[in-house]
Each structure stands twice: as C-alpha cells, then as structure tokens.
C-alpha cells in the first residue's frame, strides 16, 4: 500500500487528523487520546503494524506531546508516526502494552523522566532513576537544587 493511501485511510478514523506524508514510506498522523485505544488496535489488527519502535515524550510547556513510531517488518518497511497531545495538568493516556509488548519499557521511561501516566500498564515504576527519586527531571519546570552553587 502506498503511504499516501494508508494515511488517507487512517485519517477517516474517529479522532484522527493532520495526516501527511513526511518522506517516502513514512507517514504522520495525530490522534486524540480518547480515540487512541481503538485507533491503535485498528493499526495493529487491520493494517499490520507489528513493531512499536519508539515512544517519546515532548514537553511543549503548555502541553505534553507523545510520539509513537510504528513500523511493518517486511520488504516495504512502512513506518508511521503517531502524535498524541496531552493536557499538562492530566498527562494520562491508555497503555498499549497489551498490543505491543515492547512498549512496556518505553512507557516506563516516559513515566520515569517525563511523568506521563499510562493507564493499564502492568508495572508502572521507574526504570532509569532510583526508586524514591523526587520529580520527573526532563520536564521543563523541573528544578534541581543541590548543584546550584557556583564553582
């Protein structure tokens, strides 16, 4: 399937918008977080995206943005970028661990460093930082006070 065709079909899904083709074989689409769960199961079951290679979280000061990268492991190498905007006061989204098992640690990392809460994740705890660490250090408003002194 052509990337343009694929994006056109996906944009028809409820809550999807901003479909575009970034470069050959790479499409981009935005989805609201309410419709994300049905969109992702469609992506996996109907379109055959069998690999979740990345979940990244971006702090846009006014809101958080989640970026998912999916791909089809075959000769075409089709890739898709999915963006979800999250409000800053309630950064929660449904987990996709039951669809792609590899998303487990990506979601834990996003929780650890950026404080995104994934509802339905089996074991949402810190993965890089020690347990008991205060705060989420990659947020723009995170202040680390111990090394404040000049040297």
């Amino acid at each position: 399937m052509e990337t343009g065709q694929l994006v056109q079909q996906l944009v028809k899904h409820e809550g999807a918008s901003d479909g575009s083709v970034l470069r050959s074989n790479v499409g981009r689409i935005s989805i609201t977080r309410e419709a994300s769960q049905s969109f992702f199961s469609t992506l996996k079951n109907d379109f055959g995206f069998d690999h979740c290679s990345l979940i990244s979280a971006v702090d846009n000061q006014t809101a958080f943005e989640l970026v998912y990268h999916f791909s089809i492991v075959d000769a075409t190498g089709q890739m898709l970028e999915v963006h979800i905007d999250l409000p800053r006061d309630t950064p929660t989204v449904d987990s996709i661990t039951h669809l792609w098992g590899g998303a487990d640690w990506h979601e834990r990392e996003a929780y650890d460093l950026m404080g995104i809460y994934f509802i339905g994740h089996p074991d949402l705890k810190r993965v890089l930082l020690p347990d008991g660490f205060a705060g989420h250090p990659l947020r723009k408003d995170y202040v680390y006070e111990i090394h404040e002194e000049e040297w």
Partner: protein
Amino acid sequence: MSRQQVRGNPRMRKGLGSRTSDPATMMEDPPSGDWLTLRSDQFLNWVDDAVYNIAEKTGIRDVVNRVTRPIFNWGLRYSPWPLHLGIMCCALEMGAAGGPDHDSERMGVVYRSSPRQCDILIVNGPVCEKLRPKLKTLYEQMADPKWVIAMGECAIGGGPYWDSYSIVAGADTFMPVDVYIPGCPVRPEALMHGFLTLQKKIREQEPGYFLRR
C-alpha cells in the same frame, strides 16, 4: 568440688542434654574470668592478639619484618590486580592499556572478574545514583589492602555531568580514592602512568608488614 570452683562453660558442665525449664537449674551467665565462652570471631581475635603480642614483645616481629618487608612489598607492588569493571568510555582505554600495544600485564596488572581476588578498583566513568551503592558494595567486598583509581574526569569530579540530576559528582564523595588520572577519556599511557604512581605509593606507604595491624 563445689559449683563455684568449676571453671568453664556451665552448659558444658551440665552436659548438653540437660535442658530444663526450672529457673534454679537453668544456665546462668558465666562468672567473670571465664575463658571458654568465646564466639568464633572472638577466638580468632584472641589468637591474633596472642600471636601478635608474643611476636612483638620478643622482638621476633622486627626481625621477620626486616627480612620479609622488601619481599612482601615487592609482591604487592608488582601484582596490583584490578577489578574488570567497565562503566563507560574510559573502559575502552582500559582495554587498550591491557592490549598488546601497551602491555599492562608486564607490570603484573591482571584483570580479575571477582572483587574477592582484587586489589584495585578502577572507577572508569560517571557513577550514577543507581550505581553508587553497588560500587560501594564491590569496594567493600575487596580484601585489604586495596586501592581505588579514579580514572577520567567523570570519576574525579563528575566531568560534563557535574550538575546532572542523577550523576554523583566524583567517586571520592563516597569512597577513598588513591590515584586520580585526568583525561577525557584517559589515554592508555596515562593509565599506565597511574599504575606506576600507585606502585610508588605502595612502595612508600604500604610496607608489607609481617603480622600487619
């Protein structure tokens, strides 16, 4: 013979099978001056003290020291076995120093994989908060005498991550460090020089005593 005159452990005196709930015949605390109530570590300490005191008082220790100190010190100096632990990019330079170009094994530097067999802990990279208790455990598992080499800027003072939220600013904030080797990363020649500096330090500060205290 009355009961007070018997020396030794009351449990031994009564026999092992004489457990009773009667408070009158229960095992009492041994009187002071009793000598058979030592735990194993106390017994080892007692033997250590006895041997050390006898050797010290009779002058045997001085005589033996005069003979064995150069030998023991030479042995310590030329077999500084480091722990084969790589944290970050300085570990590659450590591997290069052990390779055929800069053959660090000609100075007796043999990398071992167990901290029980090692004398040197080379901290070759930034120590993050999650690694710090593990590194401390490794250091405490090594047998005395032991030394620590802080290799590279990250281990000396945090390096480029000095104000990070997760990196400890220097290995000497939580363990004693003997040799600092600057560099980012440290060149293999610099690591060899660090080993030589440590040899010099062992020659001066670690005499290799017989019955060391």
